[in-house]
């Protein structure tokens, strides 16, 4: 009789886990699994197939020939290093976008900024500062800049 607590799906999950030496993870008692196998020819067949599969995988496990990727990685990393870090690039993009947004907003209103708004307008729609100027004040960028120059020497 097939054990009522273990259907074929659970039995095959347990079989797969047992093959990996991880039957504990299946929370299935070895005796219950054996009882299921004794009663279920389909799962016995599945167990044989899983064993054959494991043997076939062992054949695939050899070490493939690998290339030295470091020269390309180094070249690409140096290029990335010269660019400001991602966060700063995003921040710069955002500032540029806000600047543009301010100009568009005022253009849509069709009004010259009122005197009381002028300071706001100037601050918001001023063109985004050049990257150099923006990042030069940040210590991280100065460090980067130094290391880049060192690399070039």
């Amino acid at each position: 009789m097939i054990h009522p607590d273990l259907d074929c799906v659970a039995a095959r999950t347990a079989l797969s886990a047992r093959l990996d030496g991880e039957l504990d993870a299946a929370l299935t008692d070895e005796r219950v699994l054996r009882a299921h196998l004794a009663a279920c020819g389909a799962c016995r067949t599945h167990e044989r197939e899983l064993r054959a599969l494991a043997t076939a995988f062992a054949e695939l496990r050899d070490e493939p020939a690998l290339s030295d990727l470091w020269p390309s990685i180094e070249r690409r990393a140096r290029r990335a290093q010269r660019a400001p870090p991602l966060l700063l690039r995003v921040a710069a993009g955002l500032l540029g976008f806000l600047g543009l947004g301010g100009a568009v907003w005022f253009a849509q209103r069709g009004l010259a900024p009122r005197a009381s708004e002028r300071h706001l307008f100037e601050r918001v729609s001023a063109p985004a500062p050049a990257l150099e100027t923006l990042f030069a004040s940040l210590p991280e960028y100065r460090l980067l800049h130094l290391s880049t120059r060192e690399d070039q020497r």
Partner: protein
Amino acid sequence: MDPDQELAAGLARRELGALHATYERHGERVQRLCLRLLGRSADAEDAAQEVFLRLFERAASFDGRARFSTWLHRLTVNLCLHRLEKERRRVGRSLPDADELVDPGAAPDAELGRTEARETLARLLARLSGEHRAILVLRELEGLSYAEIAATLELPVGTVMSRLARARGELVRLAGARPSDEACPIPHPIPEPT
């Protein structure tokens, strides 16, 4: 200090030396994993390079909750699965051809010594979903334990176990699907749980 912790700290400061040391320490494993997941040698090499460049850009986001090597393998698996998915959508087929999966960079001797079973398995593996392929590669080829796979893929151990069983069931099913539709070894294939 754990050498990986040191590497992570150097990477967070975007030190090229730290990137080189990381490549020396983990490069082979990353490249092998890419090759096993993506199949084609050229794609795998490009993906492995991208893994290290991402690492250089994003090492600051490594929070130390997982081991550094686990985090790196997660980054690698995710990047490869993303590429597989993009490729699948681009060409409208599931995965690379089987002959593309077998490493063309292998030595001639190894080519000759390849058994029929090995080729068949490679072909079948290429037909699995990225999810099933990834978990089988991590278990069968990389030899990770369930706990390590769970940490790499950020899944509960129980899900690792059931996904592996389903992936193997799928492989067995594919292996049994003869063109003439005879001799299917499994009388009642397990339905994929929803």
